[in-house]
């Protein structure tokens, strides 16, 4: 692999988007769970729910700040590194991005202020409304960016104006662009993936508390709520994934063939469970497969023909091995989530869930699964679209900025790597600290009448006084 501008720009995009995508799915998933918790508090008046909303909002805020700061990079990177692409798609893609800013980001950021800083400034109902709006805003932002990306996968509602280097896509039908063949399916899949992450995140932290015997009431309530939500989302995403695979087979057959490692077009196409594609020999090695199942899943008929990679010239095929492995990694994780959550639900119904220490330990670490699955799924979607940046219309290699030399891109990759590594370490450290510290114990929460702003401020003023002397020493 030579380090030309195209490779470097792709590397940088992969680095920045994968780092960014550590945060938004948790915001989406956790946001909706926080809305449930606060809603339950308003409904039942049980203070544990308030402590839950409080604690998870606290973690949400740190996560959200990381999402915003890494997201600004994404908004501008199309222009900095992919200028030719920006010129080509601006008419179509830009409007989705602008709508995202106007409809989603303002909503989120405005109400986030109330969510984090406003506990004592607004009434519980207004606070709950703000939580709902933040959760909604997080989903809106997913809507527009997934619409924009789906247009790259299955372009619709546009015409190509001009030719050669001057060619560009222009909108003719806005709604056809928004509801292009893959957008709604992919949106559902993305959001469900985020829900699963939110649920597993809450379960991971809660399981840790239960194992350590801390905050038991808090942790068990959080765990149960997240488990039900997680199980529901894990099952739904299976159907959404199946529907999506059928759409891919229709609209991007080369991508589906790469996902499934299907080199030869064939009837009674088998579904490969595991295997390793070999591009030189054009065959899938070490494959464990079920005959006819792929045909059945896609066409509803196990003898139907499924298009293989041989139907496409070599320069139009995606990298098969990467696509296959990424896709299968995601699918295997998806089945793992279903098995784990359904089994846990059964134990919850039997009343023995919180006695199974091995299972709780599994949950402590299982949160890595949805993080990985979200990343793998997006990587599969993007790698599987190659060599196109806009499927069938514009190739990735023709999309980079002409005025940016590779040395500059290399420089910015190095800077991003260093900064993101540092931020990642600090983020883990801060989250870990907050989790260790745990939610406030009942009673520690200031009741509105008893301890208002002034007394709280005075108390904190005193503790600030201690660090005041430290600050002097530092100067």
């Amino acid at each position, binding site marked *: 692999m030579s380090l030309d501008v195209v490779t470097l720009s792709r590397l940088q995009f992969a680095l920045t988007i994968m780092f960014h995508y550590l945060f938004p799915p948790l915001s989406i998933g956790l946001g909706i769970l926080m809305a449930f918790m606060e809603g339950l508090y308003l409904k039942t008046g049980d203070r544990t729910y308030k402590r839950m909303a409080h604690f998870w909002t606290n973690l949400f805020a740190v996560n959200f700040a990381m999402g915003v700061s890494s997201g600004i990079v994404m908004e501008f990177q199309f222009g900095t590194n992919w200028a030719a692409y920006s010129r080509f798609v601006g008419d179509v893609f830009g409007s989705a991005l602008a709508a*995202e800013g106007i409809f989603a980001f303002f909503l989120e950021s405005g109400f986030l202020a109330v969510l984090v800083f406003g506990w004592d400034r607004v009434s519980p109902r207004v606070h709950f409304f703000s939580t709902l709006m933040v959760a909604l805003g997080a989903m809106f932002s997913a809507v527009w960016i997934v619409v924009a990306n789906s247009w790259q996968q299955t372009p619709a509602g546009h015409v190509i104006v001009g030719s050669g280097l001057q060619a560009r896509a222009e909108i003719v039908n806005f709604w056809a662009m928004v509801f292009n063949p893959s957008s709604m399916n992919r949106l559902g899949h993305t959001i469900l993936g985020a829900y699963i992450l939110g649920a597993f995140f809450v379960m991971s932290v809660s399981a840790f508390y239960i194992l350590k015997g801390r905050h038991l009431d808090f942790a068990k309530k959080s765990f149960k709520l997240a488990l039900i939500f997680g199980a529901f989302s894990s099952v739904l995403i299976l159907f959404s994934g199946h529907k999506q695979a059928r759409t891919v087979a229709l609209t991007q057959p080369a991508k589906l063939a790469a996902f499934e490692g299907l080199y030869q077009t064939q009837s009674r196409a088998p579904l490969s469970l595991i295997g390793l594609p070999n591009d030189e020999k054009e065959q899938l090695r070490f494959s464990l497969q079920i005959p006819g199942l792929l045909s059945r899943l896609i066409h509803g008929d196990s003898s139907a023909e499924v298009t293989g990679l041989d139907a496409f010239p070599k320069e139009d095929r995606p990298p098969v091995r990467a696509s296959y492995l990424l896709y299968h990694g995601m699918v295997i994780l998806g089945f793992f989530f279903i098995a784990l959550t359904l089994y846990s639900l059964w134990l919850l119904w039997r009343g023995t869930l919180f006695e199974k220490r091995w299972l709780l330990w599994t949950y402590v670490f299982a949160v890595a699964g949805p993080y990985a699955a979200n990343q793998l799924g997006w990587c599969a979607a993007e790698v599987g679209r190659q060599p196109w940046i806009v499927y069938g219309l514009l190739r990735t290699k023709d999309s980079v900025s002409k005025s940016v030399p590779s040395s500059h891109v290399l420089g910015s990759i190095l800077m991003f790597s260093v900064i993101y590594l540092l931020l990642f370490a600090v983020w883990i450290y801060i989250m870990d600290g907050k989790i260790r510290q745990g939610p406030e114990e009942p009673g520690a929460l200031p009741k509105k009448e008893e301890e208002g702003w002034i007394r709280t401020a005075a108390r904190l003023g005193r503790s600030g006084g201690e660090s005041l002397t430290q600050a002097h020493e530092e100067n």
Partner: protein
Amino acid sequence: MDLQVFWFMTIGVLLAGYAVLDGFDLGVGILHLGAKNDQERRIFMNSIGPLWDGNEVWLVTFGGALFAAFPEAYATAFSGFYLPFMILLFCLIFRAVSMEFRSKRPWPAWRGFWDWSFSLSSALAALLFGVAVGNSIQGLPIGPDKEFAGSLADLLRPYPVLVGLLAVSLFAMHGSIYLHLKTEGELQKRIRGWMWHSFGIFMVLYILATIVTLVQIPWAVKNFREMPWLWAVVVLNVLAVGNIPRAIYLKHPLYAFLSSCAAIAALVALFGAALYPNMIVSSLDPSWSLTIYNASSSEKTLRIMRLIAFMGMPFVLAYTAVIYWIFRGKVELGKFSY
């Protein structure tokens, strides 16, 4: 008014909104190291705590709107300003996380690190915004293919750097007036002194930049000859700037703040008026410049986007107003603060 003009103005409004709002929180960042102790630094950060995120969304939306309405200008500008722009992004990242992380640990070295990174990244971000504006006024080496054909040295000429320094002093002044509104007692008294100092520095740079612009960049005043009503913006700008010391002197900090908001908005308007109808001026050949007509999206997209803007902007203004209302008044450090 044709759609391109509408979008040129809308993007100008987004940029002005960003400069006015994020201007004061960049200013607070620039002045941050002037706070004497931990308590004061926490007050500084918490004065913008609930607001900076929403303020930055104006920049993100400006980027999105520029991409959608003028993709050619978006592509040329950001790929042309590649390295400065990357550094600007790093600054914005560091500013955000500095605020988020600083108060999470009590250790002096930890807090000191984030204090420095917050302040330096704020100052550098302000400088780079100014440099970008200066470059746009002076013109860039744009070739016939609409691509930037210069080097990094072309971006750091004296004039853009002067405008960059002007931006730093402008935001520092804006931030000091904002802090004056948000603080009390001895700290507020000290900030009063900063307002005068930063205003003085700003005045010197403002006059200098005006003279250099008039002497060195003759085409910047071309539109003012053809459209005399634009002088109203100049008058507004001068009145707003002049009202800042008057309001400070008369102890009306809110008027001073509103005046400095108006002054910033008027400066952005002057910038737009000087550029129009160009988006990016080619210093190689004027006919290679990117204008609002040869850089824009199709009529259809501009029309759809206008609808989106009309639907979305009332909400945006409503949220912004509500948030500023909820978090009005002096900074109080509480358990939910940074």
